[in-house]
Structures are given as C-alpha cells and as structure tokens.
C-alpha cells in the first residue's frame, strides 16, 4: 500500500482572482505532486489540495509569500487511513 505519512490537506482561501491564478500556477508544478481535491475556481470557493510531505514547505512558503490564506484541513492523511483500515478490519474480524 502506498504510504501517505505526513501528507496534509490544505484548505486554501483565495481572496481575489489574482490569488486564484496564483494557486493555479501551483497546479502546473508537476514536481510538487499536488492532488487537488477541490480545484481553484473563483474567489470565495475553498480550494482543497493534498500535499505530499516533501512538498509541504514549498507550498506553504509559496502561499504565504503571496498573502494567500490557508488552513490545515487534514494534518496527516495516513492517520485517517489507518483509522479507516482499523475500522474495516474490526468489522471483518
């Protein structure tokens, strides 16, 4: 199973169209391996993105340097996956 330890999901709040465009720039940076759960569309609509552990610092620095607000929606994906698996295994047992 692929490991998601340290992967976070950020909820980004773009305040205006310029900030939406900035987040769209992130989409094009393939090396960051971002997984957009909710795409950047327009201001006011939250953007959710799963960020691998190795890209977290770069993404946060990018957002902060452009004054784009975000919060951590999911602290550690793997913790949730472990819970999910545990629950399924408990049921099967």
């Amino acid at each position, binding site marked *: 199973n692929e490991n998601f330890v340290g992967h976070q999901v950020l909820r980004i709040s773009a305040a205006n169209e310029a900030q939406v465009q900035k987040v769209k720039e992130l989409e094009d940076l393939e090396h960051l391996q971002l997984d957009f759960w*909710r795409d950047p569309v327009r201001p006011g609509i939250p953007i959710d993105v799963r960020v691998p552990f190795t890209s977290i610092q770069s993404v946060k620095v990018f957002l902060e340097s452009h004054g784009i607000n975000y919060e951590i929606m999911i602290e550690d994906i793997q913790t949730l996956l472990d819970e999910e698996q545990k629950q*399924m295994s408990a049921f099967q047992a």
Partner: protein
Amino acid sequence: RALSTKTFNYATYHTLDEIYEFMDLLVTENPQLVSKIQIGNTFEGRPIYVLKFSTGGTNRPAIWIDTGIHSREWVTQASGVWFAKKITEDYGQDAAFTAILDNMDIFLEIVTNPDGFAYTHKTNRMWRKTRSRTQGSLCVGVDPNRNWDAGFGLAGASSNPCSDTYHGKFANSEVEVKSIVDFVTNHGNIKAFISIHSYSQLLLYPYGYTSEPAPDKEELDQLAKSAVTALTSLYGTKYKYGSIIDTIYQASGSTVDWTYSQGIKYSFTFELRDTGLRGFLLPASQIIPTAEETWLALLTIMDHTFKHPY
C-alpha cells in the same frame, strides 16, 4: 461475510468482492424484483455489473443511477449499496416509491470503476481514474468523467496522461464508459440519469463544457432546488445547485453532458457530503446519514421524472 442483506453492515466500507457478494445476496433474496446484468468487463478483466429493479413490463421507461465512477470516493459506492437495499425495502411500503417502480425500471451501477476501486483497497487509497494503459506513457488511467463524447477534449480536461483529469485518447476509450454508453443507447428509454460523486455537497445539471444554458435549464434548476430542499430537510446538510460550469468549473467530456445530449432530460450529478472536513476520507459513521439524505433527493428526481413523462 454477511449471510443476508439484513445482516450486511451498511455502516462500514467494503471491498469490491464484498459488494459483489452483497449484490448476489440481494438478487437471491428478491428474485421477482432484482436482477444482475453484466454490461461489460473492465480493462483488467473484472465484470461490470448493474442491478436492475423491475416489477415487470418490457423496456419500461427507466431511471439510471451510478455511484463510484471516481474510485476513491468511497462514500458513493457505500451509498449505492444502501440505495439498493432501500429500494427492496420501500417497494410495497412507500406509496410514492411503489408507484414509480410499478411503472418504471431502475438501473443501479454500484461500482462504476471496479479496477480503480480495487486499486484503492489494495495499493493507493487516493486513486481516482481507471487503470488503463496509455501507449507511450508510463502513467496509468483516464478520468472516466472526462471521457464521454460531449465536448470531448475541450477546456476542463487534461491531455496529459499523468493528470488526474486526463481525458483519454478518444471519447469512450475507457471500457467502463463505453459499456454504459452502449447500454444506454441500446436501452433507448432511459428518462433520468443520475451520476453520484463526492464530495463538496452539490447537485449539478448540464452543461459542464459550455456556458450556454441547457434548453431545459429552468425546469432542471427548479427540480434541483426541490431535490436539495428535500435532502437538507433530514440533517440540515447544505447543498448548492446549478449547472456544472457555473457552480464548480468547466469540465468537458463529462457523464451527464453526454446523457443530456442523448435526450435524457433529467440528467444530474451529485457531489455528496463532506461534513467534518474529511473529503474523500469521510468516516464510515457518516455513510448511512449520507445515503439517507441523498435518497430523499433521488426520490424527488425520480418522482418528478415519473410524473412528467416526455
């Protein structure tokens, strides 16, 4: 393993094998009402099944519901299982629903992307696409909600095989899509088509590939409003509704744009709940509430379809 659909646990997530076993149990327990149809095989050779709920007749007007075309959206497949059981429970008990099923058939595809779903259980929980190979690329899979022949390849889909929104080499390249296309085309009497995704709490209607309003926009908008009102009445879950392009983003080659172009007026797509900010990792404890509230919206659409023949 559950010995009957009564002892099946609807409040936990299940593997593909468990869901397929559930389908067999449901058919065995309700032979007069439920049958299982295989509409194709996936890229990796798994059978693609649709449950048919019918009280008789030949080629009756029908309602199509699919769940789980994006494999990681586990609450959708889990809701599909719950819907299947609900249909067998409510027929003969709920007067409005019984009237619908006495006159129309319902087709329910619980696992629309079986390869992807199996892959989320075994290898990568975050997998969204199919598992087909693209010649000349190391990347795997096509977004099956960008692979339909409606604005195929336009803005709102990616031509990069490594992208999560890769549209594929050509429309219907994915057997999971083509199987539905063939089924819907051959049937010829499907009147409502509802494709269920998660998350972000939306009820959407065509179009996704163009900002031009659908010819039936007013009726679809009113119906969406009624469906969302019914959904929200149960647990207060807030939904938005509108056309795909106006409400979320431009998306070309999407399922319901194709079904609408085939003359299926009541074409809708859902994005189920994300209460608690968990996205695709919705806790299993929310499966039943999600399914329950969604069922109310589905009933609204089915009832409207039944009462407004075209």
